[in-house]
């Protein structure tokens, strides 16, 4: 039949697209979930194979021309170590979160629209995968809108738990659309100046046409792309939409978003800054390195302090996510090998840790119906595995040795010190870790050293359907903390190719 290997890049996107649409025909009950699990599982399998293909290929890159049109005219899928890695993260976390979603969706989403929910869910993952796999600037925008629209709808589905979900969703919709419009505008400016939409082609034109990089149009395109991407990935001063969205979204959606959505935003920033503009322009000619470093440092410190003050644990994790995103931005803004490698590694590590922590909180919500700091009091004895998962995840956020977080922070600190005069940045990384100690400790203290509120009924441990996905992610964060060969290798390969300009 069809040679799957030859079509992997396109199958990764079209299989969940077609399957996602068919989800609405699966009826009620467990069937939409089973179908969605099957689809995301297939996608995960494809991403693994694609990763192997990329690693095995001599050029370190797999290209697929859609419709067989030459890449300069048609749309090209272009996969190198970096996006194969991001695809693997989105595919893997997407699959595991889908398994996890079953019980929490049964509880939080009205039964008569579960099929629509999973259709939108699978399409959201499709959009994220599509952004990651493409090598065409405008295709990024279209897929970005798919992932955004689906995410607005998914967040709003928390409306039956809390009406704040609606305003959170609308606020994200407006900010997100403004951000996406800025990206569209930036792409337009670039297209006008270069005459093409293919990322590689754009890069070649920007490098080869004399005087083009000094053009004020390119400069403004750069600024607006950066602003738009900043909004989409919730970079510190532009993160206003994120805390509410994560707080009020259904538990499974929070886990999916925290692990994948902002990561794909960061990936887009990688592509635009490094692949299209090139490291020489983005961090040499433009002061963006300095701006990003300032934003990232401020983000790490401010959100760390804010997270400590939250009583709602989902909100606390949301602020922590903005802070952790600061590390990722800090890493690539250093624009040196270890900084970028740390950034890429942290994308993966944060995805598994935060995904697992949100799942643990979802399990708490599933059992107690609440997720404030009081609701976890004494839960360490009643839900030992869930709270242990949360604690191990928290250790990862701190960057404790033998967790994955340690590896990425190690690279980051190395990157900071490689930069001349970069030690204050290293200090920021360390202070951020201390702040993470404080906010994780609050939960640990409540869970293990306080008695449950009198009058609250005792609860059971979370069901296995939640524990297994949760511990898969948390287990991954431990495994890749001990054995960092794979992630380290990929991160360094990706960093080298990004610094080389072209993938």
């Amino acid at each position, binding site marked *: 039949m069809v040679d799957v290997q030859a079509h992997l890049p396109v199958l990764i996107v079209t299989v969940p697209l077609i399957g996602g649409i068919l989800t609405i025909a699966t009826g009620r009950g467990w069937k939409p979930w089973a179908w969605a699990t099957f689809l995301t599982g297939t996608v995960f399998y494809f991403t693994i194979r694609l990763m192997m293909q990329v690693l095995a290929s001599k050029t370190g890159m797999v290209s697929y021309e859609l419709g067989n049109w030459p890449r300069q005219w048609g749309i090209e899928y272009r996969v190198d170590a970096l996006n194969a890695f991001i695809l693997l993260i989105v595919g893997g976390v997407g699959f595991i979160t889908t398994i996890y979603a079953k019980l929490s969706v049964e509880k939080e989403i009205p039964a008569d629209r579960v099929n*629509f929910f999973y259709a939108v869910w699978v399409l959201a993952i499709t959009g994220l995968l599509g952004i990651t796999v493409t090598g065409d600037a405008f295709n990024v925008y*279209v897929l970005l809108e798919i992932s955004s629209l689906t995410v607005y709808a998914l967040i709003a589905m928390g409306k039956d738990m809390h009406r704040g979900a609606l305003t959170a969703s609308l606020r994200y919709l407006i900010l997100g659309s403004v951000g996406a419009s800025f990206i569209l505008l930036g792409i337009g400016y670039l297209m006008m*100046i270069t*005459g093409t939409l293919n990322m590689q082609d754009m890069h070649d034109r920007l490098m080869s046409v004399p005087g083009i990089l000094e053009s004020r149009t390119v400069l403004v*395109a750069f600024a607006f792309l950066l602003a738009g991407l900043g909004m989409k990935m919730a970079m510190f001063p532009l993160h206003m939409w994120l805390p509410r969205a994560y707080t009020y979204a259904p538990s499974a959606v929070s886990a999916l978003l925290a692990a994948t959505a902002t990561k794909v935003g960061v990936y887009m920033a990688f592509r635009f800054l490094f692949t299209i503009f090139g490291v020489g322009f983005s961090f040499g000619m433009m002061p963006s390195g300095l701006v990003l470093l300032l934003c990232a440092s401020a983000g790490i410190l401010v959100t760390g302090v804010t997270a400590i003050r939250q009583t709602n644990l989902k909100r606390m994790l949301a602020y922590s996510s903005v802070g952790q995103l600061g590390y990722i931005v800090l890493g690539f803004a250093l624009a040196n090998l270890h900084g970028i490698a740390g950034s890429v590694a942290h994308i993966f590590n944060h995805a598994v840790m935060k995904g697992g922590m949100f799942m643990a909180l979802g399990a708490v919500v599933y059992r107690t119906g609440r997720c404030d700091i009081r609701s976890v009091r004494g839960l360490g004895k009643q839900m030992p595995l869930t709270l242990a998962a949360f604690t191990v995840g928290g250790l990862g956020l701190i960057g404790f040795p033998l967790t994955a977080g340690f590896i990425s922070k190690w690279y980051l600190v190395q990157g900071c010190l490689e930069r001349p005069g970069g030690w204050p940045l290293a200090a920021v990384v360390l202070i951020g870790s201390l702040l993470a100690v404080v906010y994780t400790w609050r939960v640990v203290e409540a869970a293990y050293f306080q008695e449950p509120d009198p009058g609250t009924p005792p609860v059971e441990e979370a069901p296995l359907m939640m524990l297994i996905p949760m511990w898969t992610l948390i287990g991954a964060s431990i495994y890749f903390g001990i054995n960092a060969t794979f992630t380290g290798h990929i991160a360094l390969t990706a960093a080298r190719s990004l610094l080389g300009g072209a993938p």
Partner: protein
Amino acid sequence: MTSVVLIDTVLLLLVTVTAIAIIEVRNLYTSAMLTSVYSLLMALVWVNMHSMDVAFTEAAVGGGISTILLIGTLVHTAREEKPLKVRVHWKAAVVTALTGAALIYGTFDMPRFGDPKAPIHHFRVPEMMAQTVGFVNGTKGKQAPPEGFDARAYRSFNGAVTSVPDDPKDTAWRETSVLAQHGIIVPEVLGSHPQHAEAGHHLHPPDDFNGHVPNSVTSLLAAYRGYDTMFETTVIFTAGVSLIMLLRRPRREGQAQKSAPLLDQTILRVVSKMSIPFILLFGLYVITHGELGPGGGFQGGVVIACAFILYALIFGRPALYRVLPPPVIDMLTGLGVLVYSGTGAACLLLGGKFLDYSMLDTVSPGEGEALGMTLVEYGVGITVSMVMLNIFNQLAEEESR
């Protein structure tokens, strides 16, 4: 000063005034109607800039669907906006002014309006417009280049135009510099290419679609960038499903359906009954005709949706549901995207790449391309019309509760 610029200047002034009025007027119905006016003015602007497809879409979407959506929402939210405490929101004004200044700063190094030397007019796009992209590849599935065609020189062509004349009216430069230079549109080449020497095709260039698709907008939309359009259709589908998820309430049995309020209006009933078939026919025509002239799946889909909406307005939604029950509409919503992606998948199963329509016809690849484009246009049409109808139904149901 050309006529384009003159008309443009006047129209855009009107557009700007309308935009300010939309923002400033306090009655939301007025604001919604003004957006309709705004869209129609915009459609004129697009026509003036020769963008017929966009004008058609703008008129159908901005003037039609958006206004229906807005009015449908206003019915059950609010009529007027609350009076503002401050006349000018200074924070917004400052942010806006700064952003605008930055954008204007970026315009200074842009090629001037209509400049034929702008990169976008001579790099990459001319080949798409001449529909000769397939030659570059020469791989299985796309047509082989004609004899005497120097594919190597063509591939290494860097897009630089050797001599652009200063007189903008002299447009021969493009044919000579980009296309003829590489042996694409020169009649001698045509003659030596047997596939295109057949009757009826002897004059058109040896193109990607055997001359079936004179509208370059459609060829870009459905073929070269067909993959984007597939996701554009998915965006619409997503919006439809999101609306169902957010607005639809469980259907209660035995719920009294409001009878159609306009049914006793004889003139309305007769006229609409007579015009609905023609509207449907027109919609189908627009979808099918997309390859030849302005139009296509999206515009045609909106027109078809309008026919059904008119039917529902006059004869009541129960009557519409007898023709198209809600579950059928839901399924059709997805069917369009499935037709599109299924066409792509069929190409893949036939041994080509995803969306390589030339696989659909083994004898003549160009015919296959044209067939594939027709299929996907119908896919777009189905999804767009059914989503629009679904959105209308959701809003109308909201009203009748």
